[in-house]
């Protein structure tokens, strides 16, 4: 079976695990995507599959032959902070991650939402993100982060005057 994950093509042949999630975490060591319920109830395992938001815990691994998958590890191709995506930078600046366990799923749901609808209303964000539960209650901040990206607040490359570094700068100037 062939699977493209974060731009890399993997050829997998031996017995596959049940779910795409197990394949990502256990076989490809991409542990950013989280297992929480295994029943499609929480969204922690959300990834992008062929351009769409899916729960990888209920995506049959064998059915993914030929598919293209994007996970949280693929949002920032360089992996390091300078190359974080606008959405990731917005999550940092708006404090949209507390414990962070749901965050990879939230990011993937938001990423796909914005790819398909770059200028959502707040209600569209709320309903578009309603399949991703957060127990710490970061929802207001997640909404603010997605809103900010939709409004172009984090457009442009990292290292420009984004809120994160701007605020850090103001600290030292304070």
């Amino acid at each position, binding site marked *: 079976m062939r699977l493209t994950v974060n731009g890399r093509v993997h050829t997998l042949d031996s017995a596959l695990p049940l779910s795409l999630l197990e394949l990502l975490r256990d076989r490809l060591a991409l542990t950013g995507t989280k297992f929480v319920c*295994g029943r499609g109830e929480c969204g922690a395992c*959300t990834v992008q599959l062929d351009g*769409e*938001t899916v*729960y990888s815990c*209920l995506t*049959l691994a064998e*059915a993914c032959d030929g598919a293209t998958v994007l996970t949280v590890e693929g949002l920032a191709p360089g992996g390091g902070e300078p190359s974080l995506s606008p959405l990731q930078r917005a999550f940092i600046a708006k404090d949209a991650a507390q414990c962070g366990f749901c965050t990879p799923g939230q990011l993937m*749901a938001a990423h796909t939402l914005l790819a398909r609808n770059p200028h959502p209303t707040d209600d569209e964000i709320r309903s578009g993100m*309603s399949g991703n539960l957060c127990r710490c209650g970061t929802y207001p901040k997640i909404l603010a982060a997605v809103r900010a990206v939709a409004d172009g607040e984090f457009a442009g490359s990292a290292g420009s005057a984004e809120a994160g570094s701007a605020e850090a700068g103001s600290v030292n100037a304070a």
Partner: protein
Amino acid sequence: MRPFRYHRPASSADALTALGAPDSVAFGGGTDLLVTMKEGLAEPAHLVDVRHLRGARDITVRADGSARIGGAVRIADLAAHGVIRERFAALAEATSLVGTPALRNMSTIAGNLCQRPRCWYFRRGVPCLKNGGTGCAAVDGENQYHAILGGGPCHAVHPSDPAVVLTALEATIELLGPNEARRSVPIDSFFEGAGSNPLGETAIAHGEMIEAIELPARSAGGVQHYEKVMQRGAWDFALVSLAGIKRSDGEVRLVLGGVSPAPYRVNQSVEEDVASGALDDESADALAERALYDAAPLSKNGYKAVQAAALLRRAMLELSRA
């Protein structure tokens, strides 16, 4: 979990051959089937992925107003489809309220109709009727989410939103079986016996699959209404839902969800009264009461009758004014 083989047939003939094997089931999104497998409630030996068959993901709209929905059409596709939204607005509305965005992307309309009840006694493996036992554990138990109409012996409710609308639209389920035999089953017959059949809630026989769903021309257009009461703002099954249709020929269909082992069409005399003229608040109240005359709530779900009455009143007033 029992080991299984995954099949991805390219033709209906291959799919039917695979489905003919013992313990073989059709596989769509897997959003419920995989859960029931993890729960030990389903132990299929073969999963036959029917999403890649010709036409399985097609929505065909015809000049006469009718439409044909391939069994593997995804819930999200139905919710977003322009002609469906225009002609079968209630179906678009119901599909947009299914689960979550990810679940709507993953699940198919056929799988949605075939999902098992969410009754927690069933899902927890309590030996009830659906789990090989005799009685219904909910009757004297935690039945706040169970049936108030047409329940028994099983009181689990059918969880599907689209099924409620498809019943109001008088859809036909096109089944494809061994030797490519086709049969058309009206949706109310499709769910007949949902409350008494221990093995499932549908009329699908072993070796069969849902090829498509036919929406008749007579149900296109008119006034279409779907309302769903959810505990949370999103991501809930209906406590009570209602599909209310006033067809362009003037006929009215009222179907309740969340109250019964299968979508529950209210007494046709009530539908006729709604069709026959303008209602006021008082007559709507009386009609709602008549529609729910047979309601027999269990110990903890009497509230569903109140909600159902409210939804009926709202829909009936809207339809009668249309």
